[in-house]
């Protein structure tokens, strides 16, 4: 019987191979099995120390799940396991084409609200962004698989740009649709 240690890495905790490809169903299923065992509700009538331990364990499993689920934090985490830490100031390197594209997308977003049919325009922008993100994730996966961590770092930084833009698009969407 292999022991489950809670200080082991998130991939081992979820019995998944250390890879950028993660089967979402498998991840979710394993999450439910783990959280079922350690959720504080299972220890409602237990001693205080057991409850404290349960809260710590459940918190860690939730953190692991969130990390592996998100394409960006999964990429960061994979690199951190290789001892590579990305600081927030880390740049995308010398890639004027990417930057120009970003600026153009940002401009589109700014002009959205004045557009005659903002919802149509929004759909178009969202569609384009989704494709870019997909492409960017593939680029990271590629560099990572080839152990080209320097390149992988640049790809993560670009990925972050795109996801930040996606967040801002969602914010504008909320304003336009008036949620």
């Amino acid at each position: 019987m292999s022991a489950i240690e809670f200080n082991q890495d998130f991939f081992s905790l979820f019995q998944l191979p250390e890879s950028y490809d993660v089967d979402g169903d498998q991840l979710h299923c394993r999450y439910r099995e783990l959280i079922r065992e350690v959720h504080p509700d299972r220890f409602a009538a237990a001693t205080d120390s057991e409850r404290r331990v349960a809260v710590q364990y459940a918190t860690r499993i939730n953190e692991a799940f969130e990390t592996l689920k998100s394409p960006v934090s999964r990429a960061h985490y994979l690199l951190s396991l290789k001892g590579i830490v990305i600081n927030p100031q880390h740049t995308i390197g010398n890639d004027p084409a990417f930057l120009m594209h970003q600026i153009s997308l940002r401009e589109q977003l700014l002009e959205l609200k004045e557009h005659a049919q903002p919802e149509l325009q929004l759909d178009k922008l969202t569609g384009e962004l989704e494709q870019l993100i997909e492409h960017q994730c593939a680029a990271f996966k590629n560099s990572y698989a080839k152990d080209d961590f320097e390149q992988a770092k640049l790809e993560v930084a670009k990925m972050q740009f795109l996801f930040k833009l996606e967040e801002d698009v969602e914010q504008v969407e909320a304003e336009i649709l008036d949620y």
Partner: protein
Amino acid sequence: MALLQISEPGLAPAPHQRKLAVGIDLGTTNSLVATVRSGGAETLADSEGNHLLPSVVAYKDNDQLLIGELARLGASDDPLNTLTSIKRLMGRSQQDLNLAHLPYEFGEADSGMVKIRTRRGEVSPVEVSAELLKALVARGEQSLGGELLGAVITVPAYFDDAQRQATKDAAKLAGINVLRLLNEPTAAAVAYGLDQGSQGTVAVYDLGGGTFDVSILKLTRGVFEVLSTGGDSALGGDDFDAAIGDWIVAQSALATTLTPQQKCQLAMISRDAKEALSEQDVVTIEFAGWSGQLDRQQLNVLIDPLIEKTLKAGKRALRDAKLNAVDIDHVVLVGGSTRTPRVVEKVAGLFASKPLATLDPDRIVAIGAAIQADMLAGNKPDEDILLLDVIPLSLGIETMGGLSEKLINRNTTLPVAMAQEFTTYKDGQTAMVIHVVQGERELVEDCRSLARFELQGIPPMVAGAARIKVTFQVDADGLLSVSAREESTGVESSIEVKPSYGLSDGEIASMLEQSYQSASVDRDARALREQQVAADSLLQALAAALLADGEVLLSEQEQKTLLAKMEQLQRVRDTAGVSEITASIDVLGRDSEDFAARRMDASINKALAGKRLDELDSESK
């Protein structure tokens, strides 16, 4: 392959020894208590056969206290001393509230929780709620014939930390062991989930008297995962009534300043009109010498803007869950305000699906809470239900320029923790203040201020040298605690975050003292008894744990040490006073934490042993 059943440490009741636990729906307009008996969950009635307890408390002459229907009946004769819809004031300061519609007199406005002036003196919403909780627990103990192990109390999913803390304080004041604060929509889903064994995605639309919630949940083999939640903790049927009331005042061309009696009367008339229009097309209204008619069409005009607000929250919840309306398999309606036909019509339109309405919308939350209470009490070792709630509002801290930096995003599954490092900005700085806020907006002033806490004892260093790690932990009840540590020197200071409008432990203690005096209970004897029971249950739990796993998980020496510490607690329990017993319990609790962690690891390993991933995978299909 079925999951192996592992009995919980310290949670293996002797057969047939059922632990008594109840679920309490502490509502804005009405409250209920429910329990699981002979297999089924049911709400409990008072001696007159009424299940709903109107959430009304009246402070009468001669220290007389009326609760429920009796209090409600006298409301318009004595509006200043008859407190209704108190839930809307929980965890709120005077600045937070629009008090115009409320017929009460309030204490001095300050940043603390609002206080209401009655002939009993100033009372806080926490005290009023505690009276309601006491009445419900008494009803539970009477019909179940014994003392309760504890209760699950429901709160709107959209309640923030301050409102949850206020609810927990009320329970503490009422002497209730809170097994869990459960979100109302989750409770509703549990009630339906068990009745119908349903799987899939569920939208719960909960419009009560004063609060509105919408939650999207995913049900998978007994796991209820909240995907997103949204709402408005100050929107409900009361606002429908107020809209009708405003209309009546406008129609009747009465003076706009009404007496407290008139305000109270107007609220009742408006509510009656609204309820009547659920059944009929037109209703005649008489108020202060004016008479007129209100039809359903006009009612719809009055309430549509309010319903529209709820639909927007519903759309946002869908978006947060990354789902479309067509992905929703079931819609569940909760709360008395979903009896209004216009609400049903609009909600059905939003989710493009006919809402489930087989359970009484007034009782469903209490039923769900009772099922969860029964589980938490350990009465159902064979059933495998797990409720995973989320934090409803993002948690952040104030940074330079009055901006909120989000640490934990809304809709993150609980429990969750997040650590953040801070540093000093002046040479020799020894203290700093961290301001915690809750809300989605960027500016701190647009968010809800939860607490400011001061971190003291930072060793003097040059600016930027200190590394202060602050950990924000939100537990399964949605309650926040904060701890801080200076990493370069290892000085730790743990701070429980006290909301500025919450009650301090001292205040709770003094309120308890007062209530004991008036009830002439010997408080010392009771406190001693409580600590002895706490010591007994810890000793029993540890003894059971040692018997089950001691040989395997602990070395001989470790077992001996733990046994000696247990004997020590036993001696203190038998001979010493309250404070010593409390301290000893704490010590033994901490000393046994490592053993608890090893047992947790072992039980997970057992549960997952021989269970390969392909099996887990095939189960999910």
